[in-house]
């Protein structure tokens, strides 16, 4: 950035300016014994004052005087005893303060003492520039510009033009301002007046001005008989420029010529120039002469800083501006809330992930679904989920014949329990009740069973209230149909080692050992570790099930029962809730995973009727006599139907249970068993 060099002003230069409606006229003067007018310019730009000040700055002139309309000022004349000037000025200042009661600041007051005429008293002139009640009109100057500008009252500028023959008059019809100066018998007579109400009528204006001139002549001590003639003579000297009228006699022009040196070309070539610029030339003489004190008025007292509040008050003291401010305030008060609301709305809208209408509709739907699910939870039962829970609570060996679910009466189960090789039938019932209580879904299950028959089969029923129907209970993996299918329970997961079919299926089961005494209604707390041998031999039931677990059918060798064994629990919902709103509220995703899975819901049982296994003897005999199926080719396997494959799987399962197998045969059976399982999976 280019550094700005401070302007060095020439103290001897002075600019005197006159503001008109559309332009500013100015003279550039060099002070001295005989002031010299260096230049005369007119500025009619959009902002003529700024143009003027730029010009003065470029001319290194730091002293600018602007004419102050007579209508803005008050003129008082006084007489003072002849003394040294400082004493006279002090006395006059006291008089001025007495006149205006201190209402006018010193910076807005000009004092001048007329030259000594040899008389005992001297004439003093006081020009005051009172602040209007509504504040100063906007000067159009910035605070910085205001600092370099001082004001010369028009009436003071007329002093050098005053003569005894005719008064010097300077008037502006637009502002109604009239300044008159005349040399009278008693000395100089000055008058500053405002002619109001006649600006629109030329005749009225002329009459008003004429009357002011006549009064001034009268005040000057002229004989009344001469007044009319003098007024007429004055009017003869009138020249018009815009709204301004200047009346100056020839002797006044001569006076100007004698006291000023003018270097402006037009002054020599154009005779009217002197008349046209007379008021500014008069101001120049005043500003550079002994009456310079009259030409140093300032709008704001130097050194006194006007506060922003004062400036604001002043600025809005103008009724027109105040009315504008009121209207702006009204509009702001009226429309600001709308604007703020609109901005807020736009910001919120911007935050939305989709169109507001769509988002609102979706959110409303979600809210409604949430309310709906809440109410359903209060008033109904998730029946399918409860059947799934029941399936997971039912141990092997239990055949369910009847299930009754009711929101008011809870669950009521009736069925048959068959003892397994190492577990009493009674223990299976109590275990089931215990499982139900442990699930948290049911509570205080009440099992009842009869004495049973000699084969270890007894009838039972269990009743239980449903306390937390929607609770996603965590079941052991071995009991959870969603994790361990029936076929996996029975024969192990594909790929497991050789004894997967026997040992692994039993590892998770929690049953009471036959060696333990049944405890009636309460389940035994002890759980027996799975015995691979005993479980392996106890597997007399072969399930044919598809690996996907959509359904599972089991049949006992004796054909005493046929049950659908759910491979994934009875519509057990996934235990991990779909946490996001969409999952739960949208399509209810995640809530229906078990659709179609379930078998046990119906007649029974999520468990295998284990009649053969329970009894032990006949089953063991059957197992011992099971034939070892021959191997098969892939083509043969692919040619099988699902049922044929299941049947073959059953044969292999039986054969695997034989204890007398050599290692190679056992391995072949396991391999073929897995091939059948894979084939069944591929069918689904």
């Amino acid at each position, binding site marked *: 950035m280019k550094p700005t060099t401070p302007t060095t002003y020439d103290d001897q230069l002075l600019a005197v300016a006159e503001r008109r409606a559309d332009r500013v006229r100015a003279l550039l003067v060099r002070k001295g014994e005989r002031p010299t007018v260096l230049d005369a310019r007119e500025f009619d730009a959009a902002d003529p004052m700024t143009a003027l000040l730029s010009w003065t700055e470029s001319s290194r002139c730091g002293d600018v005087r602007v004419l102050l309309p007579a209508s803005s000022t008050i003129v008082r004349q006084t007489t003072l005893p002849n003394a040294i000037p400082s004493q006279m000025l002090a006395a006059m200042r006291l008089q001025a303060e007495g006149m205006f009661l201190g209402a006018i600041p010193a910076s807005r007051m000009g004092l001048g003492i007329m030259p000594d005429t040899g008389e005992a008293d001297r004439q003093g002139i006081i020009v005051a520039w009172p602040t209007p009640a509504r504040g100063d009109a906007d000067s159009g100057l910035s605070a910085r510009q205001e600092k370099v500008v001082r004001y010369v009252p028009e009436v003071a500028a007329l002093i050098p033009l005053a003569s005894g023959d005719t008064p010097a008059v300077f008037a502006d019809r637009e502002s109604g301002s009239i300044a008159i100066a005349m040399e009278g018998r008693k000395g100089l007579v000055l008058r500053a007046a405002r002619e109001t109400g006649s600006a629109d009528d030329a005749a009225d204006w002329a009459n008003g001005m004429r009357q002011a001139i006549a009064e001034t002549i009268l005040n000057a001590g002229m004989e009344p008989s001469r007044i009319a003639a003098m007024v007429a003579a004055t009017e003869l000297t009138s020249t018009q420029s815009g709204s301004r009228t200047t009346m100056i006699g020839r002797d006044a022009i001569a006076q100007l010529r004698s006291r000023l040196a003018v270097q402006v070309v037009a002054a020599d070539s154009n005779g009217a120039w002197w008349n046209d610029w007379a008021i500014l030339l008069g101001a120049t003489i005043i500003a550079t002469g002994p009456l310079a004190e009259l030409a140093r008025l300032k709008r704001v007292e130097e050194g006194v800083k006007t506060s922003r509040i004062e400036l604001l008050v002043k600025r809005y003291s103008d009724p027109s501006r105040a009315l504008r401010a009121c209207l702006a305030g009204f509009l702001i008060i009226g429309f600001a809330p709308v604007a703020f609301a609109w901005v807020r709305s736009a910001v919120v809208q911007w935050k939305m992930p989709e169109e507001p209408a769509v988002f609102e509709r979706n959110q409303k739907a979600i809210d409604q679904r949430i309310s709906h699910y809440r109410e359903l939870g209060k008033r109904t039962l998730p029946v399918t989920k409860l059947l799934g829970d029941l399936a997971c609570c039912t141990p092997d060996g239990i055949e369910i014949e009847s299930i009754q679910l009711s929101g008011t009466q809870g669950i009521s189960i009736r069925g048959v329990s068959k003892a397994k090789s190492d577990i009493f039938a009674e223990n299976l019932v109590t275990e089931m009740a215990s499982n139900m209580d442990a699930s948290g879904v049911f509570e205080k299950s009440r099992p009842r069973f009869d004495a049973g028959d000699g084969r270890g089969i007894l009838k039972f029923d269990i009743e239980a209230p449903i306390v937390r129907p929607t609770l996603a209970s965590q079941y052991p993996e071995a009991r959870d149909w969603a994790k361990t299918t029936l076929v996996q329970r029975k024969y192990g997961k594909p790929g497991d080692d050789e004894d997967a079919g026997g040992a692994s299926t039993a590892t998770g089961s929690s049953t009471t050992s036959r060696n333990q005494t049944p405890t009636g209604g309460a389940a035994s707390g002890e759980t027996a570790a799975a015995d691979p041998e005993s479980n392996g031999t106890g597997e007399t039931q072969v399930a044919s099930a598809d690996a996907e677990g959509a359904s599972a059918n089991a049949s006992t060798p004796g054909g005493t029962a046929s049950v659908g064994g759910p491979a994934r629990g009875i519509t057990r919902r996934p235990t991990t809730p779909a946490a996001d709103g969409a999952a739960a509220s949208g*399509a209810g995703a995640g809530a229906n995973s078990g659709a179609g899975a379930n078998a046990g819901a119906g007649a029974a049982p999520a468990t295998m009727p284990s009649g053969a296994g329970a009894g032990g003897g006949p089953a063991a005999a059957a197992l011992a006599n099971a034939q070892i199926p021959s191997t098969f080719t892939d083509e043969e396997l692919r040619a099988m139907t699902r049922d044929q494959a299941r049947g073959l799987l059953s044969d292999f399962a039986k054969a695997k249970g034989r204890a007398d197998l050599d290692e190679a045969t056992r391995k072949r059976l396991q391999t073929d068993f897995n091939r059948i399982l894979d084939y069944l999976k591929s069918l689904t």
Partner: protein
Amino acid sequence: MSQAKSNSTTVARDPFVRVISWFGTLPRAAKWGVIAGALFGGFLVLDEAIWPIADRMNERSDRWVAMLDRAAERADGLPPEVAANAIAYGPNAVPEDEAKGMRKLAATVDGVLRKKGVSKYSQDLRRGQQLGTDVLGDIAGPLGGTMGRTIADISFEAAPDDVTAIIADLDGSADIDAITDLKLTYAPATKRVAVQMSVEKWGVLKRTPKRGGA
């Protein structure tokens, strides 16, 4: 002079100056009347026309903000009981008109049973059972009614596999809100399961204006 006239005309054209000039010519009482009228009229215009626009926008923004807050809460996770219910009950359609729901319920029951080869079944529909005015008021209110339910009592017999599939299909259908009562009885002789169940669909019972008479 012409310039002065021009300026004078410019000043006179300034509406604010003209208003102030006009105001200055009024008698004292009229001035107070004008001030009071301007204040009252201005307030009426703002209060009746302008500010309600802002109020409406703010209400809408408040609603959106509340909605965003709820959505943000839900993004962190549904209330546990709602999530558990959603998982337990499966998909459900928000209740609409009761009559419409009833038709869908009957159609769904019929469709599911027929799909599983159960053509012989009984279905007894009980309509218009009010659930109470406090139940799902946010859904029933805008539709101008109260929440009610249609209950279908169904009984049929089927193979065990079919029964479980039917129950799962019915419970999983969005057109059925819940299975309320269920009784399954296995008959070893026929190897079939007898099913008695009640399924229900919720819907809005429209209020019918009472007919008055003299």
